[in-house]
């Protein structure tokens, strides 16, 4: 029985980790060009979840179709945000911080007006559990894990293997150098922001069937994603993935073996330790 519980805990940890990683990669995309942490990322996730929820509940979309639709819609919204909210104040760190906070407040309270503050449950999809030799895995978590993994892989392939992605990386490394090579900076920063938002929307859509959809659903995941990117090292994609993996597994293991309170604290203790002993994070650039 002991090993079965352990494996189950690991798989739960992985499904948790995959959502953290989605959020963290989105934040990393945005950080790589804006050099800020986007406080509104949780609210972007929440909007993504609502788009999915509305499509599934009222228009009876298939879950995966609604996921893709939500990513596209929120990605376009990200383009808009980058152009009209963040770009005018690019490079002014503290002002960007206030902008992202103002955006978070506006989006959350608008969602409360538009959708009411109540929790909404998605109608059950992918019900039931898989039983492999006494290891029980809920199907919906498995689906979330796989879908998140596809998104993560996709975004990494895009970044490393396509010309567009390489250009993006060039912009994030050295804007001036990139623009000398004929890369149009503004287009790429907009694209990066859109991708970051789309990944948050994916995370939101995948969270929707597991938990509930509400205007406040984004505040906790975004805090977790902050922890993840610091653990892994700010601005590093591999760091975001490793950080998410570690946080997901540690949280899931402490929840099973040490209780929920310790689980909540564990992430922050990890964060404080890494900041004191290795402030750059595991894979971060040296400051």
């Amino acid at each position, binding site marked *: 029985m002991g090993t079965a519980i352990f494996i189950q805990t690991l798989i739960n940890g992985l499904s948790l980790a995959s959502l953290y990683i989605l959020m963290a990669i989105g934040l990393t995309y945005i950080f790589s060009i804006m050099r800020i942490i986007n406080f509104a990322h949780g609210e972007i996730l929440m909007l993504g979840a609502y788009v999915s929820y509305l499509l599934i509940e009222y228009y009876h979309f298939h879950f995966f179709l609604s996921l893709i639709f939500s990513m596209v819609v929120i990605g376009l919204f990200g383009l808009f945000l980058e152009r009209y909210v963040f770009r005018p104040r690019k490079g002014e760190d503290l002002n960007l911080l206030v902008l992202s906070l103002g955006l978070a407040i506006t989006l959350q309270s608008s969602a409360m007006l538009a959708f009411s503050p109540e929790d909404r449950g998605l109608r059950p999809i992918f019900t039931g559990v898989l039983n492999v030799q006494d290891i029980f895995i809920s199907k919906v978590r498995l689906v979330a894990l796989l879908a998140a993994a596809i998104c993560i892989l996709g975004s990494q392939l895009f970044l490393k293997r396509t010309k567009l992605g390489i250009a993006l990386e060039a912009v994030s490394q050295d804007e001036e150098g990139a623009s000398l090579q004929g890369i149009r900076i503004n287009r790429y920063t907009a694209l990066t922001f859109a991708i970051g938002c789309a990944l948050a929307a994916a995370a939101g859509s995948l969270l929707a069937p597991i938990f509930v959809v509400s205007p406040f659903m984004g505040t906790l995941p975004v805090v977790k994603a902050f922890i993840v990117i610091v653990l892994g090292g*700010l601005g590093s994609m591999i760091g975001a993935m490793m950080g998410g993996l570690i946080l997901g597994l540690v949280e899931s293991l402490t929840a099973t073996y040490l209780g929920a309170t310790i689980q909540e604290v564990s992430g922050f203790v990890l964060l404080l330790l890494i900041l004191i002993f290795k402030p750059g994070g595991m894979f971060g650039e040296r400051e």
Partner: protein
Amino acid sequence: MNANETKARSVGKILITLAAIAILLVAVPVLLKGQPYVFHILIITMFNIVLALSLGLIMRTGQVPLCQAAFAGIGAYTSTILVMKVHLSFWVSLPLAGIAAGIIGFLIGLPTLNIKGIHFALATFAFGEILRLIFIGWVSLFGGANGISGIPAPDPIRIPFLFTMEFESKSAYYYLALILLLLALVVFYRLWYSPFGRACKAIEESEALSECTGISAMKYKIMAFTTATFFAGLVGCLYAHYAHFVGPQEFGFWTSVRYIVFVIIGGVGTYIGPIAGAVFLTFLPEFLRVAEAWEVVIYGLVLMLTIHFFPKGIKGLGDDLYSRFSKLQKGAIT
């Protein structure tokens, strides 16, 4: 500008300050008698100004801490426990609350203040959240998620034959908050326009360069941080005894972010900025009450629009208007 003019201006400044103090001391309580809600807003505004001032000093060294609310929390819980469990007088626990916050600020500052930029912000964010979770988790001492209610009011001040001050009405708290505000205004003013303040600014501009000229960056950062956390503790303590309640949710990450926003909206790196920001953003929701359900939406939009149009904050806007005004005047003369 000749010496006489400078002297006249500084005398004028002192007169204006004295007049403002007199108005705050005498006129406001008399005019607002019987309007407890206005008093409440004024008291909260004064608390917020002190917190924003203290943050302004830390941010002058270039560090952005995301845990100022946590230090207010330390002050609030320290005083609450000292008064309710140890049965100390409020007047003893008030300085102790500040000192406790200051000491913890010092201890937290030591390992974190040499971390730079956004990493420092995240380290302090982690500290604040851990502290909040301790407040929630240690139920026997801190009352858990429900907090502690029924915190007694400060003991009355009795000066024989002169007056007695009982903390039953809002106006007594108003005076208490006003004294703290004046103290903070003076202390931070003196720090701001002193070699200490200039050293902080030098560190913000270039830490390496200021170290080369013999300014120990770490020393100044720690001094600024400790002073600021001391005042945050005092505010927290007063707040707890004013609201008769402390709870962990009031001292979380988002509250800390709100204080940061006071400073940025007011104008970073200026003495007057945090004050203006705190006043503006504490009064704003009251004016937005008319918008009812849209209140918070508009609040968020105002934050964004302010930064969009006035990237230097309210202070920057004020300077802009002032220079335009004086140009107009000169234009009129010539």
